[in-house]
């Protein structure tokens, strides 16, 4: 068993063990793996909480406190994400960094290029502290994440699904075609009584439609209206009239119905139920809405995912901004 004493074997085994240990320790989930730490500054939270108290005269409730924290954490995560992608190198951010570098430069008169100035600012960490740069970076990151979705064309089956799930928005409303006997409110003091009297005459005399319509007062609205939506009827004769007529059964005279003009006896000739247009007619509109919704949801999901890559340390809530009992 001389080979067991071979230095080469020892070195090999040791190497394998070391490799395994390092892999285990630093790999995803390993004990040496350390997620980057985002520490929400206690001073920042205190400021936001204090501002809330200033604005509302009371401490935030638990839900409001959570909202404040969430907004702050999302901003920090987006900032780190933007920095990791090198967004501080975009033109706008560099120009701003160069600008603020001049404020803190020991010898501002000494010529340095804007790029150099920006580098100095980054070395000094100004890119993480300056509100404007932070906002440029978080805005850019947010837009970049959403753009992943917005730049695509949604899959046809998604569009169809969305369309099917939101038909109410695209539905063409129900329509009715009516004739009506109008009783003019400027002519009769009690238009409802007059309408009842005419209805009795129509029923007892079994009057046909032309004969019934001949009983009407001169009206501002034609006696015979083509297919009209509830909104169209409402615009012409009033909300209550429209709602009542849309519920009438076809083929018979109604009881008196009030409108803005007086009262009416209504005969419904035809009714078309609400209908959904073909997707092809509204495809562009639906696609845009699908993308917007997906982009919003994708942003939320991505933010949730990005959060898991950090160790996020949130300061304790100080007692002076703790919610009051019952809040």
């Amino acid at each position, binding site marked *: 068993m001389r080979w067991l004493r071979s230095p080469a074997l020892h070195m090999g085994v040791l190497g394998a063990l070391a490799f395994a240990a390092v892999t285990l320790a630093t790999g995803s989930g390993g004990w040496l793996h350390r997620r*980057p730490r985002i520490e929400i500054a206690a001073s920042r939270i205190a400021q936001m909480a204090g501002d809330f108290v200033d604005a509302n005269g009371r401490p935030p409730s638990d839900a409001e406190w959570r909202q404040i924290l969430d907004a702050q954490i999302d901003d920090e995560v987006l900032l780190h994400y933007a*920095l990791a992608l090198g967004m501080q190198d975009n033109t706008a951010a560099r120009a701003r960094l160069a600008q603020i570098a001049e404020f803190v430069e020991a010898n501002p008169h000494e010529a340095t290029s804007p790029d150099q100035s920006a580098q100095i600012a980054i070395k000094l960490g100004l890119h993480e502290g300056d509100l404007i740069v932070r906002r440029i970076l978080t805005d850019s990151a947010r837009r970049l994440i959403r753009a992943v979705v917005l730049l695509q064309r949604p899959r046809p089956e998604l569009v169809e699904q969305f369309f099917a799930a939101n038909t109410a928005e695209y539905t063409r409303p129900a329509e009715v075609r009516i004739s009506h006997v109008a009783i003019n409110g400027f002519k009769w003091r009690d238009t409802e009584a007059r309408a009842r009297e005419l209805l009795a005459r129509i029923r007892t005399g079994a009057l046909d439609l032309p004969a019934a319509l001949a009983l009407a007062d001169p009206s*501002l609205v034609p006696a015979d209206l083509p297919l009209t939506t509830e909104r169209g009827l409402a615009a012409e004769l009033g909300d209550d009239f429209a709602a009542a007529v849309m519920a009438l059964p076809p083929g018979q005279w109604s009881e008196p119905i009030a409108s803005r003009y007086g009262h009416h006896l209504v005969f419904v000739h035809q009714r078309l139920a609400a209908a959904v247009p073909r997707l092809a007619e509204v495809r562009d509109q639906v696609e845009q809405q699908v993308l917007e919704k997906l982009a919003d949801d994708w942003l939320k999901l991505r933010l949730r995912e990005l959060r898991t890559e950090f160790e996020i340390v949130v300061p304790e809530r100080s007692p002076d901004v703790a919610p009051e009992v019952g809040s």
Partner: protein
Amino acid sequence: MHWRPRPISVASCLAAASLVVVAVPVLARQPRSPAAPRPPAPPPGAQPAPPAPAPAAGKRSSPPANPPFELTEDRPRCSNYEPRRQALFGTTHLHTGLSFDASIRFVDYQSGNSPRGAYRFAQGKGTIQLPDPSGAQRPGPPIGGGPSRTPKIDRPIDWGAVTDHSEHFGVMGICKDLAGKDIPERLSMECRMINGFFYEPGRAVNPVLGSTLAANAFTQLTITSDGAISHNTRLPVCENNPALCNRAELEVWTEMQRAAEEAYDRTPDCKFTSFIAYENTSTPLLNNWHRNVIFRNDRVVKRPVTAIDMALHVNPDPTKLPINTIPAGVVTKADEKRVWPVPVGTTVRSPLPQPFWNKLDEDCTQGKNVTDGKARRCDFLTIPHNSNLGGGSNLFPPLFLDPFNTEDAKRHQAMEPLVEIYQDKGSSECRYDPRFLAGTDTVDEQCAFEILDGKTLGSASGVGASGDGGAAPPSSWGERAYVRNVWKDGIRMAAKGDFGGINPFKMGVVAATDSHTGVMGWTPENEQWPGHLGIDDAYPMASASNIQNSTGGHSVVWAEENSRDSIFAALKRKETYGTSGTRIIVRLFGGWGFPADACEKDFVELGYRDGVPMGGDLPARTGSGAPTFIVAAWRDDTLKTNLQQIQVIKGWVRKDKSTHEQVFTVAGTDANPFNLEAALDAKSCKARPELGAPRLCSTWKDPQFDPAQHAFYYVRVLEEPVCRYSTLWCRTWIGVDPLNHGQCKQDLAKLQAGTKEQQIKAQQGAMCCSDQTTTPFVQPVIQERAWTSPIWYEPKP
């Protein structure tokens, strides 16, 4: 920074895909509606399906192939075409986050407060995002209570125009990334103001500071560029990079056109009509000389004509002359064509509308610089607004200038057929102030309606908190600050024959909100008022000028159908009226022999056949009688506040060329406008139901008619009183009751002396106990109303 984001994992992609599948049902807004087979829409001009037992008479005819208005676009006629015209409620004036002065108040284009968002809002298709008091854009209920920051319209409107300020379109394009992302100019001082970089939302929750800074930004952005006669320059960021700025301006203007096109329903359903439009923002020394420009269709000017184009000498070197002065300018031979018909040699002490109209006329009407739209030709009209803040007092001339000559008088009439009589920033109809028991050339007490204490934009609507030094007597206002007086001056000029007998101010009426929050068509009087200016009036009762903001009104047209050509034709012929926010319906016809019982007949047929509708000129006089008017009004169907009265307001010119006015109550009952609480159910804040009537009608003959006198007649319809939105706001959010003045003051004082939370409430509601006797002038109870375009009478020589 050593961290690198992990690549998006397969699991994440699957999650995204599953999100889509899961999200779609979740996103469904309403349960699925039943689908039913539907016959295809008929082609234009086609007959509807034959009715079962159809009557021969009283039948609505199908849309004609050649309607009575000019067709500039090919599109099917609307299925609800009404040859006798229908009232369509809309707006001619609304801003979004693409206006610089909205953006400085954190009304955020990128959060969806855009022209697209506004058009969707107007149709009831969605909510729109407003900033919370700190400037942050937060979906969901506001943290800490208060009105929703994601409001939804109560009732959709039929048509509308987004009129973002054309000045600074270039800067907006840069600051809002429409000209490309991450360009260095985005860090300019202009963008810092416009994007709120001066004030970090969510990190410095201090509405007072934010509001003050926004007001300063407004002044800086407005004074330097939008006002003076010969010092108008673009902002430095644009002067330094004109090519970029021009590109950015074009991007914004194109975006507005695209948004309008997307919102326009070109199907026979005709659900909504949008107009491509913008606002020219001439603001000399903060006097409001603003004019909205509405284009007829999708063929529009390639570049908006702005306040900068109104300067007599454009873009001088701003380093050589003080920017905040308005020196006189003299029209030279070189200016002649641009400012025609202003004569050469004229000394000018204010900006001129003539170069603005001329350039629009040349570019649009003459087709020299128009976009490639679907329509056949370009057409436009301009609508001035807020003459109540438009100068005319002290040394500064009024928004409505005298014409220079006959050609100029004709120009006024042709370019400006309408005036905005009412909006968030008060009424411009007339002024009567009960604190002085006096009016501005009027004794009409109903003119004490939504009057402002400020005289310029610098002291109204939150730009300045406290007005121009408190209450000033009505006599200190220029008489042309109010439209009724402008109409009187117009007929006086016609009577005197100054300009060939032309009346330069023959304008009809519209109303709007002018909201800078994208809430197109939102006007109800309730505690949910979304504000006029973003963070400036997130607490609208906190300052004197903010509480004076009203909820604005609607423009109404009588048009055959809801299409651009039909509505534009109605606007041009002035068959329009405005309301203070409710949906009153008004019809007015003038003629020479309407029967006394016209109301009992089909008076619409009579009116069109034998007379003229609102906005028209009385036909040639027949016989020896006086003119007769048929006027009818119906209450808002949804709100059901009864009508109190219909008034005809007559203005006329005597032989000595003095002008006069008189108010006639022609239907309903006159009542004391300063005891409105008596007609109110104080608990519900609604009018007592036993008062008033749901509809009123009258045939009225002018009892004082003199055929030798020029005259105009317009109608004002008054509802029974209801609580103003500010009353409901103060009751709900502050816990004080403005209807009980003494108790209100005591309760407010208690809050001021109370806990920190109560003290803040007291600040937010500091103006809640204002009324008609205080400064600011506020009516806790108001009478909503409608104003029609006048009908004019001109004696024939």
